[in-house]
């Protein structure tokens, strides 16, 4: 038997199937978040790729922005609890988690027992989130997943506002009209995200080790800028994008008594 954790975010859906002895059996991600398509696709994808039958899933726990609209869910947990659980599974020494998702940024503090002691989230504003990077990528006519690699070729970092996505977009367009290189602009965009996120992290407090989770953690340019802004090393696990779904699967195990 297995359990399934699904993380339905605003821009992507992730799923992790886990064995009863806490081993990752399968994982899947689709680039559609909450709504009719994403949750269905990620569910079908993990079942087909892992050859699992629905009947083999003892419990399904859902987290993320779309956690309350998944029909087959047995229960739901907040993404803050699930990210904390998932990151600790991947990197047990972590005490501060920064999760940059599609529309939310969260900073989570854990105690030495791995329990959440405090957290903060961003306001209703896209600045500093994955959505901000998506918008900027569109303006620069590149793919979001290319941003990290492109920023490695920057020769300088252009100053971009972190007050508002719309203002920042105007600034980028203005800089493009001055023939500023795309690479330098991307480095500026990453720095803009890092400054915005780091102010939230400072508000919550920092205890080492610090890990970044969520899809944006795959962007090396953001990781570098955030590391510089916080003046410390940031752990990024290769499965960082799955930490929410992983945490959901671990909670599902707990709920059926498999501690």
């Amino acid at each position, binding site marked *: 038997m297995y359990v399934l954790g699904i993380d339905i975010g605003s821009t992507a859906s992730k799923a992790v199937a886990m064995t009863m002895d806490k081993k990752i059996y399968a994982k899947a991600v689709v680039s559609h978040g909450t709504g009719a398509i994403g949750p269905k696709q990620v569910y079908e994808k993990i079942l087909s790729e892992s050859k699992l039958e629905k009947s083999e899933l003892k419990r399904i726990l859902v987290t993320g*922005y779309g956690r309350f609209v998944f029909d087959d869910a047995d229960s739901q947990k*907040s993404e803050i*609890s699930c990210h904390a659980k998932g990151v600790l599974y991947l990197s047990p020494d972590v005490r501060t988690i920064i999760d940059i998702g599609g529309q939310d940024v969260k900073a989570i503090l854990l105690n030495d027992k791995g*329990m*959440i002691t405090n957290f903060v989230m961003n306001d*209703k504003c896209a600045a500093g989130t994955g959505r901000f990077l998506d918008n900027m990528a569109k303006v620069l006519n590149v793919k979001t997943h290319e941003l990290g690699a492109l920023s490695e070729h920057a020769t300088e970092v252009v100053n971009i506002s972190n007050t508002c996505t719309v203002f920042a977009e105007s600034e980028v367009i203005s800089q493009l009209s001055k023939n500023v290189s795309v690479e330098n602009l991307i480095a500026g965009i990453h720095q803009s995200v890092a400054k915005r996120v780091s102010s939230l992290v400072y508000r919550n407090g920092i205890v080492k080790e610090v890990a970044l989770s969520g899809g944006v953690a795959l962007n090396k340019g953001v990781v570098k800028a955030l590391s510089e802004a916080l003046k410390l090393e940031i752990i990024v696990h290769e499965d960082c994008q799955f930490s929410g779904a992983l945490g959901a699967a671990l909670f599902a195990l707990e709920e059926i008594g498999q501690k």
Partner: protein
Amino acid sequence: MKKIETLLDRFAFVANKPSAVMKVYLEEGKKIVGCFPVYTPQPLITASGMIPMGIWGGQITPTVAGKYNPIFTCSIMRSCLEYGMTGVYKGMSAVMMPMLCDTFRGMSSSWRAGVKEIPLIAFIHPQNRLDSGALDFMIEEYKSVLKRLEALSGVQVTNASLNAAIDLYNRKNAVMQTFNEVANDHLDIITPTVRHHVMKSATFLEVSETIQLVGELIALLKAQPIHKWTGHKLILTGITAEPEALLSLFEENKIAVVGDDLAQESRQYRTAYPAGEMAFERLASQWLNIKGCSMAYEEDSQSRGKMLVDMAKKQDADCIAVCLMRFCDVEEYDYPYISKATENAGLYSLCLEIDQSTQDNGQSRTKIQSYAEMAASLV
């Protein structure tokens, strides 16, 4: 229990349909003065024979208000202006507006330009409240307000009639405070939403009706067995904790509200008018005595944080939730102090963004659920 339900239905109706309440008052031939938030001298209105009704805007996306108020104005002011410009407040004899923050200064011009048929009575609270001239200043402001009210109502207010009105408001304040205490013994009945209905309806109903109805509710609650609440308990602070969908998130997560410092709710009922013979002095002195409010300057910037921590400890709450009105400068200034005080006291701190122009509570849902999960895991 049926009597309690009937009363609670009445509070819910009044809180959600103040325009229907206003219609009844107008049909009874009563005159109404709208009161912008907060600390309007309502005894002056009552003594003038008119009814003060709170103006709290509503959960709408304003359109015409944008002509005068930019998008980054606090959403209460924008929705109030929208209602004023679209006739929702039609029938009010005047609106009273205290200049308690910078937004109000612009808002007073916006109202005069956009809502010509409802006269504006604007006045200023002195912020240097320790200054020896503060009391005289406040008295003169209130006398100026009273002249406008007397002209509208045709009623001459005397020292005795104003003292009687002030006494009535002290009774209202006392009854609201008693409700707060008694409600905490019946958190199964007085859910966060129900509590909000009782508090908010008191801003719309005639003062005597509030005293009577809330008094009846208190008596009925006292007759019920005390309920032992096993869920989480928190304190709310901020300007408002709306919409109701936000409060239902507390209920979904078995969280009770056991105290509040909301400007729309308890904050306006916790400072009594002092005893005395000179009515204007009593009225004005109340402003000088207000503590722990973002709109009333205090030299001790920690005052509100300390007050909230004390309130939480007294009510056995483990969390202080700051309902931060978007674009409200005065509340933003207080937030770091409250947050620090909460943290130092070992309590959980939640910051929930309040914006009347959106119905989306997605982030608040995550924050509230996370708090409940976090608190449960640490028990």
